[in-house]
């Protein structure tokens, strides 16, 4: 499992705009880079990121070769109800990882 760090406010008032920040360890190998022996390393990147809030998709992004290693993704959403935010990264070589964070909305 890759290391991932997620920052979500633990509590929010209903209707608040909340900022979410995520980081994940990933090489984001472009598939264009030759190694020391001149052999091009095969592409290995994350392709898609999605955030679901109580099972409703609230944010998604496509990722490409031009994105740096260990991608940082930040976005905002509206606090609607207490529950769970889940974050999923998928990519080359069957990469798939999901992390969750709880939020209490009052």
């Amino acid at each position, binding site marked *: 499992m890759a*290391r991932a760090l997620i920052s979500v406010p633990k509590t929010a008032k209903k209707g608040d705009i909340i900022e979410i920040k995520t*980081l994940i360890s990933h090489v984001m190998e472009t598939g264009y880079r030759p190694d020391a022996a001149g052999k091009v390393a095969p592409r290995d990147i994350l392709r898609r990121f999605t955030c679901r809030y109580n099972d409703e998709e609230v944010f998604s992004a496509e990722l490409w070769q031009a994105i740096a290693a260990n991608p940082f993704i930040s976005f905002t959403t509206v606090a609607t109800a207490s529950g769970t935010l889940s974050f999923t990264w998928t990519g080359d070589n069957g990469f798939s990882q999901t992390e969750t964070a709880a939020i209490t909305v009052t």
Partner: protein
Amino acid sequence: MIRFIAILLLLSLPAAAADIPASERRSGYDFMSPATQEMQRDDALNPAMLWVAEGEAQWQEAPSSAAKPCAGCHGDATASMRGVAAGYPAFDERTGKAIDLQQRINACRVTHQQQPAFAAESRPLLGLAAYLGLQSRGLPVQAPDDPRLAPALQRGEKLFHTAMGQLNFSCTQCHDANWGKRLAGSPIPQAHATGYPIYRLEWQDMGSLQRRLRNCMTGVRAEPFPYGADELVQLELYLNSRSAGMTVETPAVRP
């Protein structure tokens, strides 16, 4: 590389460089763009925190059923390791030499956990070094004060002032005499190693101070000292004395 050399030749370098007065000492952080500075300031944005998380997990985990985890002997790192990294390199009784923090971690790994040493620049080693370094963040760098370190410190100081490589440059020529000027677009910092290990944008990766020093040596077309070489530790020791009292920033971000 060609550009690097061409610009090097344009630098007018005084033959002897004086030490930087204490009031003019500045961290590499001060030479960075506001965006990169923000990346370092905000832990949620700093990719180095991924390695810190790795190190924290390593700290808690027993490497085998027969061995204790780091925490099994040292307890809560936020208490037991507070301020420790700020005083490395330090004198090691077992080898009778100066060792840096990563060598100290590996010494525990080998002697107290009976495990093979972590490889240079490996994730668990950089992770543990970043996690322990974080326990000194905000504290002053401790000058080496053990008298047994004096010979290593002197050798480090001498190396810092020795011209190296095909380009025949010494560390002091760039970092004491020409800091603030630009080299191939990057500002030359004063070489205060207050934030190591660092996440370096150019590497797209975390790296140790030894990796940074080896880069500077390659930059002047010198054969870099191998990882773990006494010379690198001696340089680290001298850098620590030059930066004594400055604030530890680990884990820092650098361009």
